[in-house]
């Protein structure tokens, strides 16, 4: 399905990541945002508020982030594509409804322009310290998808990618930006609508009387009907059966929650996305994502200039985590350096998947600014030094 020309601002722009993200959401067909202003994400909703009356859709500034994160789910069940946009403190308030979207299989997008935390932290400065929260923040077992852009261009591209994943797998998708990417200006190329491929909602095709809200297809994803279609849908936040009826038993829990998890795990090989740079002969592989991956690229180049065989694995999709890829690389390389703007989050995943076959080091940063390339280089050098041991952690 092609994008609707009405929402696509085709052309070349010099734009910041927040504005570009908004254009990406519009291009993806998002016609509803419920939001609450919070630095450094506010520009996304400000632009949406300005654009949407001229495109056809709804923007509503809700009373808080809790309301924002559920009003969009109402809009989705009424048939629209919808997103909300926030940053740290607001993201914390949205956690319950990320779980709701996972449980009720409501396709929607949560944009988090990350800033330094915990609590109010650094409202105007970047961090990547919500990465674990994005995966584990709501209670219970569930899976989500998270993508991490490293440029304003990617804020546009990945907003579309996020919606496509959301519709394909009927999960909440996290677009994990950060203040640096959100506020930096670069050239953004917006293609024409017919160059933008969108995944259509998986609408039910059976007769209205036969529709069951949670009967999955072979890939474990159920089809959707919207309110008002005459399907008498039952959308249930309690553990439920295929009809949407609550069933409070261990058996029903196992069946439902396993499916919610497996629909992502079984399809993970189709969801993973990463970029590799000079990985073939690398003795040290830097694993990075988002804005830090750009600096990591520079660090790898500096290392190569010094004769160190360094490479880069840049994660585009951070969740689900590319377990197999890390396992495979761990057998070939000597060390991983995880470069991220936090004090150690995704490095835990790298460590887990390396199974002790390669050293795992952290090039962490408490946030407030991005790493200097030299800071990552220093850890790369440490990684190849014979004195460093497996699992070394230095902040």
């Amino acid at each position: 399905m092609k994008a609707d020309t009405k929402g696509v601002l085709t052309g070349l722009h010099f734009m910041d990541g927040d504005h570009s993200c908004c254009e990406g959401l519009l291009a993806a067909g998002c016609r509803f945002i419920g939001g609450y202003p919070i630095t450094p994400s506010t520009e996304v909703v400000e632009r949406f508020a300005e654009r949407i009356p001229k495109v056809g859709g709804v923007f509503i500034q809700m009373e808080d982030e809790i309301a924002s994160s559920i009003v969009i789910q109402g809009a989705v069940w009424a048939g629209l594509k919808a997103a909300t946009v926030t940053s740290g403190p607001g993201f914390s308030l949205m956690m319950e409804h990320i779980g709701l979207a996972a449980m009720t299989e409501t396709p929607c997008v949560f944009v988090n322009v990350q800033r330094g935390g915990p609590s109010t932290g650094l409202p105007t400065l970047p961090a990547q310290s919500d990465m674990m929260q994005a995966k584990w923040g709501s209670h219970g077992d569930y899976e989500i998808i998270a993508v991490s852009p490293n440029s304003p261009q990617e804020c546009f591209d990945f907003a579309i990618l996020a919606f496509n994943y959301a519709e394909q797998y009927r999960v909440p998708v996290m677009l994990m930006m950060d203040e640096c990417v959100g506020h930096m200006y670069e050239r953004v190329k917006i293609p024409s609508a017919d160059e933008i491929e969108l995944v259509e909602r998986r609408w039910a095709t059976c007769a209205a009387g036969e529709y069951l809200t949670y009967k999955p297809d072979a890939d474990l994803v159920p089809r959707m009907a919207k309110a008002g279609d005459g399907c008498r849908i039952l959308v249930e936040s309690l553990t439920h059966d295929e009809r949407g009826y609550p069933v409070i038993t261990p058996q029903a829990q196992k069946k439902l929650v396993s499916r919610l998890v497996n629909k992502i795990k079984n399809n993970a090989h189709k969801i993973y996305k990463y970029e590799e740079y000079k990985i073939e002969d690398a003795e040290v592989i830097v694993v990075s994502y988002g804005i830090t991956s750009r600096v990591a690229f520079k660090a790898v180049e500096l290392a190569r200039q010094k004769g160190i065989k360094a490479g880069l694995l840049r994660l585009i999709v951070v969740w689900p985590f590319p377990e197999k890829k890390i396992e495979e690389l761990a057998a070939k390389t000597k060390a991983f350096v995880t470069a991220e703007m936090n004090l150690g989050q995704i490095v835990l995943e790298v460590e887990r998947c390396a199974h002790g076959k390669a050293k795992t080091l952290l090039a962490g940063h408490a946030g407030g600014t991005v790493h200097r390339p030299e800071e990552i280089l220093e850890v790369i050098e440490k990684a190849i030094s014979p004195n460093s041991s497996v699992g070394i952690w230095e902040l």
Partner: protein
Amino acid sequence: MTQTLELKDKMEGLLRTNRLPHVWCSGCGIGIVLNSFLRALIASETDENKVAVSCGIGCTARISGYMNIDGFHMTHGRALAFATGLKLANPALKTVAIGGDGDMIAIGGNHFIHAARRNIDMLVICVNNFNYGMTGGQAAPTTTKESCGTTAPYGSFENPFNLPFIADACGAVYVARWTAFHVRQLQLSIQEALKKKGFSFIEIFSQCTELFLRKNKYGAGLDEMKFFKQNSVIKNGADTREAEFNSRNDKIVVGKFVDRERPDFKESMDGYFGKVLKDKFIRYEGPLQTKI
């Protein structure tokens, strides 16, 4: 007789009968509310395919699961915020939020006042049983003074909310209160509110037999119905400030208090954007039709 049979069939068509028996205790008033709501739907000839019921969490919030219409059992307190999304994304839906007092006015209080302020076109039905039933009888923001709850073991000393007054002050276009005793008036009130455009609010005093009544030794369900009957005064058009029910010694003021016209959110939005953006404004009409 035929008419009654026809009504019975219609009622059964609107129930997910394979889900019965329901979770509510015997003597509970929520079943009365369900009954009145379905009768009102039928009597008002509302297209049941275009009705969506949004609920939060609690005894009353289970109501959507028993109705054979589009139903949403969401998170605690958030029924109105969810319903706002439903309504704005599909203006053709008749959106109804039904819940208890704890759900709607404690944890969901913020959404309540803002949905009323924005005049979102929805019918909100709040079943007030003066305590938290599903979690075992804790005190609520509606608990009458000196009545006990498990978290107010010596009796409540806080001031309870006057819900019609809040709804009125926040701009609701229709405000009424009845009790589980007033089944006829309640049904007619729901019928009337279903036809209203804008934020309509009906509060229903209801008996929580196993917890609130038992704990406070107020008698059985039937005794509470008698209490409602004997202590209610019907005052249509009363100032909502008079609807205070602070203690069990107060009179229960019931009736239709507010019935007025105000442009709803969508009308305001469309009217305003049309005025300031002129031909640049693209009015949102609703989602595209899907295959079903």
